[in-house]
């Protein structure tokens, strides 16, 4: 391993830029003559727009334009779409309601945009926005997904507010498994709704060049090419070749910046109308009511076991709240990213899952770090833990009894796990966590009036989200490969143009490590280019922990081609047969001789082309690859959480955290550890702190950081992090992906630990002090009895 190659904990190249304030985020981009947009948003969860009076706003100082949904419709700007088709059990397609970028007839959630004010300055736009008079006729709203089916119908296309009633698995076979069971564990679970809260709020800046008829959009996007594709093909703002989308530095996404949002569409449309660049940057309160939220499931789940604790079957019925409109990939999250993971790490013969997706008058819900897989893990890991407690089996033992041990393993819910060693990660985690010493620590806590608990989460996830053929057969509207272009410059430095997008992951470092190792050139001589549709050939972007497994694999394929071509050049330079050229440590050598050429010389020769004729070989050294994997990847591992609960206040303190993950090949252990830390923090946030509350009228109660609790450093212990490694056989590097693991594993580990401590399973997330205290009050009589 070289100091900067694969496996080295290289410091992140991009951090100097970020921590010295030199990042270029969308809001930092300033175009000549740019204007500021402020949106007028609905304060109501559901209402009819009777009239919008913009006259007073238009007369305000500095106003350049005030535009409404009626004008958007008149200009035939298309609505936003959901790009993953799901069919109901009865074969009918999902009920996708129209989603105009500016509402013209009805508003369907607090924050739904009805008009945009464009002015010379932000303050002027805000002043004028207050003067837009919207006459609303209030309509009854429904915010609780459990009540959606009986609530007022939100969209004409969706009776009973039902988007689809989908199922996966063999219901009959599962019924017989349950009939044969010795023990059945039942749980009712609410997977709480979350606000992503990336540190950089969403922003868009659109510019129109009438000379070339070209539109450019700077945008906080995780996937600029997909944004361009959807905006041109479905929204119809501009043909693809006349639209450039640039996602410059992006400050966190967690999924919320995958989607195509109304604001960027409106900025593009408005830029052409007002003939000036138009910029919008969300304020935090706007982020709360417009960024796609995450999770929001209500589930009843059951686990059937034989007398030895061997799992016979699992069934689940889930209501998934998709909010007021179907966001870009919303339909896939509670279906193919959720039910397909209900086998966990276990050999479960039969699984059946029903999912009803519903509309409510709330912000749209879509993928958020983990997307479906945290929900699945929570169901499986809670069921297994509770089953163990009910049956008096040690929770680690019940897991071992049911682990999948032979690979490949076909689950009853589509997925074919290709590699893993679940016993290894469990064992290593138990050692690191000193599970043996737990009882002693528990007694010690009791002496201080505290309850101590231990919770496991042996999670699995499916990353990469591929191959394209497979996801296409499941309803995806796009292919999920990735592309790369490796440009070797005449001086031997290298630029990699990748379709992956970094918004905190550190690709500029890890991708450069790969290239440095493969080409034997200094790490500093490699730069990574991403996020610009004019530069990068195409790309599917970054989400689902796919940049390593898919994005880097594309780079590997392009590097293979570069090497092959460079060998041809070297053969001419060294006057040897191509087959005799070997490449190692940045040097091309004629096998068995001391004749060699350095990588830089070969690059130069490829361009000056003096040593070969154009008939024999094309000059240049630049290769492209589009890589489609053979399967998902299956990162898995074991997290163990240990808590202490203050019985008087109900406050939970996480006192120990152990994470042992199998991510396959690790390119940069420091970055991977950082991803694990961040993921756990978000998972702990879900378990202990975060939770969106809407009142019954659809008003967002947790609409700011003063009411919505984000995890902070003092909420977390120092993590013990370890890895085990089984390589993924589905991509050339053996990478599995690490970006979501923590967020997937953590909630179940925390709740398993607290319920262990308090001796009651009746605990909802977020397990705030008040919630735990209430559970303790209820548990007390039981304990006393």
């Amino acid at each position: 391993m070289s100091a900067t190659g694969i496996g080295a904990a290289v410091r992140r190249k991009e951090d100097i830029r970020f921590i010295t304030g030199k990042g270029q985020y969308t809001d930092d981009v300033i175009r000549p003559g740019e204007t500021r947009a402020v949106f007028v948003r609905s304060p109501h969860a559901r209402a009819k727009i009777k009239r919008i009076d913009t006259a007073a706003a238009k007369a305000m100082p500095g106003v350049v334009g005030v535009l409404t949904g009626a004008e958007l419709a008149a200009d035939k700007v298309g609505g936003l779409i959901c790009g993953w088709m799901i069919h109901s059990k009865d074969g009918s397609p999902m009920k996708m309601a129209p989603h105009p970028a500016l509402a013209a007839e009805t508003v369907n959630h607090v924050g739904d945009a009805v008009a945009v004010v464009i002015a010379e300055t932000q303050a002027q736009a805000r002043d004028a926005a207050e003067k837009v008079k919207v006459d609303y006729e209030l309509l009854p709203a429904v915010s609780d997904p459990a009540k959606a089916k009986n609530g007022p119908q939100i969209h004409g296309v969706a009776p009973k507010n039902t988007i689809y009633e989908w199922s996966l698995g063999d219901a009959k076979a599962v019924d017989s498994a349950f009939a044969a069971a010795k023990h059945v564990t039942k749980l009712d679970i609410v997977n709480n709704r979350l606000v992503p809260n990336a540190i950089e709020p969403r922003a868009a800046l659109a510019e129109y060049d009438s000379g070339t008829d070209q539109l450019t959009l700077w945008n906080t996007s995780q996937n600029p090419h997909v944004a361009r594709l959807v905006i041109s093909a479905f929204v119809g703002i501009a043909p693809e070749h006349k639209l450039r989308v640039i996602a410059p530095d992006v400050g966190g996404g967690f999924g919320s910046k995958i989607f195509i949002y109304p604001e960027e569409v409106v900025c593009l449309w408005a830029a052409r109308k007002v003939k000036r660049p138009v910029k919008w940057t969300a304020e935090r309160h706007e982020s709360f009511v417009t960024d796609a939220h995450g999770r929001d499931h209500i589930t009843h789940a059951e686990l059937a076991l034989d007398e030895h604790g061997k799992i016979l079957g699992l069934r689940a019925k889930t209501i998934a709240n998709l909010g007021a409109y179907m966001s870009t990939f919303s339909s896939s999250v509670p279906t193919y990213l959720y039910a397909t993971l209900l086998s966990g790490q276990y050999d479960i013969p039969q699984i059946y899952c029903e999912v009803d997706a519903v509309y409510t008058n709330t912000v749209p819900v879509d993928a958020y770090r983990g997307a479906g897989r945290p929900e699945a893990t929570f169901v499986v890991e809670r069921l297994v833990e509770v089953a163990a407690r009910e049956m008096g089996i040690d929770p680690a033992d019940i897991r071992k009894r049911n682990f999948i041990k032979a690979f490949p393993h076909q689950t009853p819910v589509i997925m074919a796990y290709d590699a893993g060693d679940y016993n290894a990660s469990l064992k290593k985690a138990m050692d690191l966590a000193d599970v043996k010493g737990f009882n002693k620590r528990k007694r010690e806590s009791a002496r201080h009036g505290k309850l101590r608990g231990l919770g496991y989460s042996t999670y699995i996830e499916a990353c990469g989200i591929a191959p394209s053929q497979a996801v296409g057969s499941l309803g995806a509207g796009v292919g999920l490969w990735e592309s790369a272009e490796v440009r070797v410059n005449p001086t031997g430095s290298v630029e990699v143009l990748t379709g992956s997008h970094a918004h905190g992951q550190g690709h500029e470092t890890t991708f450069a490590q790969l290239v440095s190792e493969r080409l034997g050139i200094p790490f500093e001589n490699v730069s990574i280019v991403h996020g610009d549709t004019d530069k990068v050939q195409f790309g599917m972007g970054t989400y689902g922990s796919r940049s390593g497994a898919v994005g880097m694999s594309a780079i590997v394929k392009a590097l293979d081609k570069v090497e092959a071509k460079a060998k041809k050049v070297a053969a001419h330079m060294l006057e040897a047969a191509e087959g005799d050229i070997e490449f190692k440590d940045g040097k091309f050598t004629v096998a068995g001789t001391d004749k060699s050429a350095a990588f830089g010389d070969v690059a130069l020769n490829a361009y000056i082309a003096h040593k070969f004729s154009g008939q024999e070989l094309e000059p240049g050294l630049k290769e492209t690859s589009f890589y489609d994997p053979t399967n998902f990847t299956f990162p898995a591992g074991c997290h163990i959480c240990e808590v202490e609960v203050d019985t008087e206040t109900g406050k939970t303190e996480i006192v120990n955290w152990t994470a042992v993950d199998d991510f396959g090949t690790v390119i940069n252990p420091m970055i991977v550890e950082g991803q694990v830390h961040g993921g756990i923090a978000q998972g702990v946030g879900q378990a202990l702190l975060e939770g969106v509350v809407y009142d019954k009228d659809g008003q967002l109660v947790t609409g700011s950081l003063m009411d919505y609790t984000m995890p902070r450093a003092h909420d977390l212990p120092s993590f013990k992090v370890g890895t085990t490694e089984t390589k993924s056989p589905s991509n050339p590097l053996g990478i599995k992906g690490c970006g979501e693991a923590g967020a997937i594993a953590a909630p179940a580990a925390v709740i398993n630990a607290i319920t262990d401590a308090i001796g009651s399973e009746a605990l909802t997330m977020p397990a705030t002090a008040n919630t735990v205290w209430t559970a303790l009050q209820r548990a007390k009589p039981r304990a006393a009895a």
Partner: protein
Amino acid sequence: MYDFTFHRPTTVRQAAGLLARNPEAKLLAGGHSLLPVMKQRLAQPSALIDLSLIDGLDTIEQKGRAVVIGAMARHADVAKSPVVIAAMPGLASVPGSVGDPQVRNRGTIGGSIANNDPNADYPAAVLGLGATIITNKRRIAADDFFQGMYTTALEDGEIIVKVSFPVAKKAAYEKFKHPASGFALVGVFVSKRGSDIRVAVTGAGSNGVFRVKSFEEALKKRFAAKSLEGMSIPATGMNADIHASAEYRAHLVGVLARRAVAKATA
């Protein structure tokens, strides 16, 4: 934020004059309560009168049997003031528990008690020690000062100049933080100064900071945590919101009072 004019007087007198001439004006101390609501456009003062250039408004000193803190003393300065720590570490811990470092380095005692946020920390200490609020016009006893959420005895044009805290032999503050905001979900300040025993509660009551007479009576018999064993207060009149039910807040008042007494007597 809407437009406003900005004044920077150098004496309390000038400040009072400006305030009298601009009825829509607001005093600006640390700005950590005022500026956020202005940014949200929920407050629209015509002018801000910044108190930060007035000399001597941020002094912290021991005067006889009292610790006197200037209105513009920042939370961070009070928290680490040797004078306060020597006299009453329990008092120093109150501003020390406020928000985060940024807030503590800007926020002031004058702004905090003038604002009288029902979840603010200082009101518990001011009431819990029976402090005296000294304004440019008069002296107001803590028991008369706080008049319900965001409401105080301050009259138009009245400026807090300093707060005088009698030194209590035993004093401590216990705070249960609001998980999101860091304010007091419930905070209890207890003190014993001779026979004067006070238990003041912030965060819990729907009408702002209040004293718990039943606890005070119990502590008069013996100032020890044991005296409060099994005691609680009724849930009626407690705040209830998504973060804590009224019952839970009432319960916490008992728990925190016991812990505060234990701390004060440790």
